[in-house]
């Protein structure tokens, strides 16, 4: 069988002022008709860049310096835009990593689908609309008519992701490149979308290049896997083969790092760690903070009582009727000192909002919040900020695009008195970056010069550098490959033990939640429907909503290799 796509010795460089970044250094890939090839690998290893270069859509600063990309025998490297357009869409379809910004905000979904349909299928306006309708149906959208009339901002993240798939699938491409198409989705929606991709390959023989870091997704969907690291492919093979018997050491590390439900007790001893990752213990201490006499563990550090939050939309002067959205509804909850409290719930259930409320970042509509015994609305904010930190959900927007990442870490250190001098702050910054697996040399880059996962780690570094007593982590590892994720999780655990920290951990990867957390709370439409010990996740008396989340977890097809 001849490959639809073959990539040979691809090299891609970024020209930065005063430096060259070799993002891709010799990638070789083949994708065959009808197969799903999963591309996994370290965050920042060049997956997205490889994908973009196939379609000739690299950013202006990037250049293919060597190698060839052949699609159905046609060389794509060096082709002018006009010639590439022949292959784009009809030949190769692409689903980008970030669905939120990838749809045109000024046109309705119907118009965007219709344009694509008319371009590739050469049909009339009405027929194009029909095609759009059918495709929305196919990607599992319940009311296609409404969605056709909607603008992107009026849809939820999952819906937008599905629209992207419809857009890419509609022209019937021979090859579909999907860059982390399910990262932002909760487990239920994720499963739907993957099944849809599988349908496509089955029906039309479309080949899929699926970039992901979720091994559940890999084993559920792909027939072959390619593993990428530091700009090059290190291993390719049948999925079962690679997952079952990885050859390359890095692949092995990756597989070992995959969190699986029930892993919590895989290791004996009271210190729970993911063994695949290099242990940090012994060197996690950032500053010379001596472990103060440990206050009694078990005391509540954060207490929420009857907390509610309503958002007002519209009202006087905006020309819209005033409506309110009740994002958090009468939540009562307490987080104990030294524990890791997990918060789960479907997308939009109010997890992030609750987290913001806890630190006094949003005014309360009702209820009361105590931090370490004092009301957060009354407490000295300066003191609160030193002891209470966040890792925000969206690392891209939580970083200031115009400030070098080093400064973004240094400034709060100085401001909150963690460092007494510039020099000390800089040292702490390098330590923190180092701990999250980024070298200090990254400090003078701007956020947009990082990959998605790298940005997320910077956010984490920024928060842990402050060594807060309570750290809220809002889906902190969603964009990380499993090995990096393991490293980060271990780091967090180390830090917690060392410094006696408390975490509020928000996530949708139940394996991770189960592994990391001590107790778990489930949110549904703003209400906390239950809380339980992590060990009781699978208890029979779980609420239906919790159960639904559990059911959608993709199992790893291959048995886990455990280290002996």
């Amino acid at each position: 069988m001849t490959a639809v796509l073959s990539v040979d010795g691809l090299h891609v460089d970024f020209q930065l002022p005063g430096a060259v970044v070799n993002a891709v250094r010799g990638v070789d890939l083949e994708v065959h008709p009808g197969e799903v090839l999963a591309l996994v690998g370290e965050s920042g290893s060049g997956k997205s860049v490889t994908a973009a270069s196939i379609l000739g859509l690299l950013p202006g600063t990037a250049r293919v310096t060597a190698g060839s990309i052949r699609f159905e025998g046609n060389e794509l490297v060096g082709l002018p835009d006009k010639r590439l357009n022949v292959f784009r869409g009809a030949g190769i379809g692409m689903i980008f990593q970030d669905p939120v910004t990838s749809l045109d905000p000024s046109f309705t979904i119907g118009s965007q689908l219709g344009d694509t349909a008319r371009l590739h299928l050469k049909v009339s306006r009405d027929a194009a609309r029909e095609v759009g309708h059918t495709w929305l149906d196919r990607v599992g959208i319940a009311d296609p008519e409404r969605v056709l009339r909607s603008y992107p901002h009026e849809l939820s993240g999952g819906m937008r992701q599905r629209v992207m798939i419809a857009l890419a699938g509609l022209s019937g491409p021979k090859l579909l490149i999907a860059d982390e198409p399910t990262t932002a989705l909760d487990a239920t929606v994720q499963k739907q979308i993957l099944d849809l991709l599988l349908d496509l390959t089955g029906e039309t023989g479309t080949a899929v290049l699926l970039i992901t870091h979720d091994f559940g997704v890999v084993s559920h969907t792909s027939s072959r896997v390619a593993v990428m690291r530091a700009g090059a492919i290190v291993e390719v093979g049948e999925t079962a083969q690679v997952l079952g018997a990885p050859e390359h050491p890095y692949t092995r590390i990756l597989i070992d790092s995959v969190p699986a439900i029930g892993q919590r007790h895989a290791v004996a001893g009271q210190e729970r760690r993911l063994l695949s990752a290099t242990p940090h213990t012994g060197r996690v201490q950032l500053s010379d903070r001596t472990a103060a006499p440990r206050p009694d563990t078990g005391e509540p550090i954060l207490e929420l009582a009857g907390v509610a939050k309503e958002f007002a939309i519209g009202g006087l002067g905006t020309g819209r009727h005033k409506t309110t959205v009740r994002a958090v509804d009468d939540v009562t909850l307490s987080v104990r000192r030294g524990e890791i409290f997990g918060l789960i719930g479907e997308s939009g259930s109010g997890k992030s909002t609750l987290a913001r409320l806890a630190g006094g970042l949003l005014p309360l509509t009702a209820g009361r919040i105590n931090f370490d015994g004092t009301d957060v609305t009354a407490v000295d904010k300066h003191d609160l900020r030193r002891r209470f930190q966040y890792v925000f959900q969206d690392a891209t927007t939580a970083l200031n695009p115009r400030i070098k990442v080093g400064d973004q870490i240094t400034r709060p250190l100085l401001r909150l008195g963690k460092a007494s001098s510039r020099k000390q702050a800089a040292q702490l910054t390098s330590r923190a970056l180092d701990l999250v697996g980024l070298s200090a040399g990254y400090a003078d880059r701007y956020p947009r010069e990082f990959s998605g996962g790298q940005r997320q780690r910077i956010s984490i570094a920024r928060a842990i550098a402050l060594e807060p007593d309570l750290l809220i982590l809002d889906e902190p590892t969603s964009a990380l490959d499993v090995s990096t994720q393991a490293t980060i999780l271990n780091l967090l655990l180390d830090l917690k033990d060392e410094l006696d920290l408390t975490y509020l951990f928000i996530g949708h990867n139940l394996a991770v939640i189960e592994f990391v957390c001590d107790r778990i709370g489930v949110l549904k439409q703003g209400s906390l429907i239950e809380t339980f010990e992590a060990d009781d996740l699978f208890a029979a008396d779980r609420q239906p909503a919790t159960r639904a989340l559990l059911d959608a977890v993709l199992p790893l097809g291959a048995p886990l290799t455990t280290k002996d």
Partner: protein
Amino acid sequence: MVRQILWRLVNLVPLLFVISLLVFFISQAGPADPIKDVLSQKMSAEQIEQIRQAYGLDQPAWSQYLHWLRDMFTNGGGISLSVRSPVSGIVYPAFLNTLILGAATVVVTVVLGVLIGFVSGIRHGRLVDRAAMLFVQIGSNLPIYWFGLIIIWLTAVWRNWLPAGGMHDLRGDGGFGDLLLHLIAPAFAASLVSMLIVARFVRAAVIESAQSDYIRTYRSQGFGRAAILGKHIGRNILPPIVNTTGLTVGSVITGVVFVETIFSWPGLGSVLLNAIAGSDYPVIQSGILLVAVTFVIVNLITDVLLDLLNPRLRHS
């Protein structure tokens, strides 16, 4: 939407009231004296006093202000102090002329500014870009006194292509075509300043749009350059265009004074200048109120248009 418009219109009332107060008392604060200015050159003190009484200028300022306010509502601004003619007859026609020139200027600004900005933006960094930006930069920084004269001498005296000034050919019948012909040079000259701003904004918006993720999506689907540029970038840069256009309208209306002088355009600029010089309060105040109302209305239209253009803000 309707409520928003109504709300803004309600807001207008205190705004205009403050403007009127401000204008009135600022013009009174100066040392100028309407009667002295206009007539004093050739008149004695008693004569001046006599006229002052006749015009009611011996009354305290607040009472004059109230008078004028009443006039504003009853007869469109009262009587001009310097020429004893109804203010409405002086200000409104001139304002209409300024509006005509202003509208033409805005049209030229937008058409040329958008065109240049667009071409520059899509040819970002190339020669065309540099040349186009240089062109608008030069244009907007040419002293109008100098450039206006050069235009007149080139187009009217050296070559008889365009009229030398004014709004109508006094020998002709003054049709619409004639008006357009007279508009070309002053509208072009007046548009140069704002053209730079519009062009720069459009250019920046095009560059930004072109690098945006959704344009990348279109490209990945194999849309041709022209289709992407024309339809999608075009639509997405409309809001900044509308916004900057709204912003320039104010400057155009108050800023055409110099252009009006050089091109003998019978607009509000010279009326205001004369009135200011003669401390002709009723004329000054009515004129500025008109400008203010126009500006606020343009702002309102801009905001409404922006809402209509931006689906994220639109009421669904």
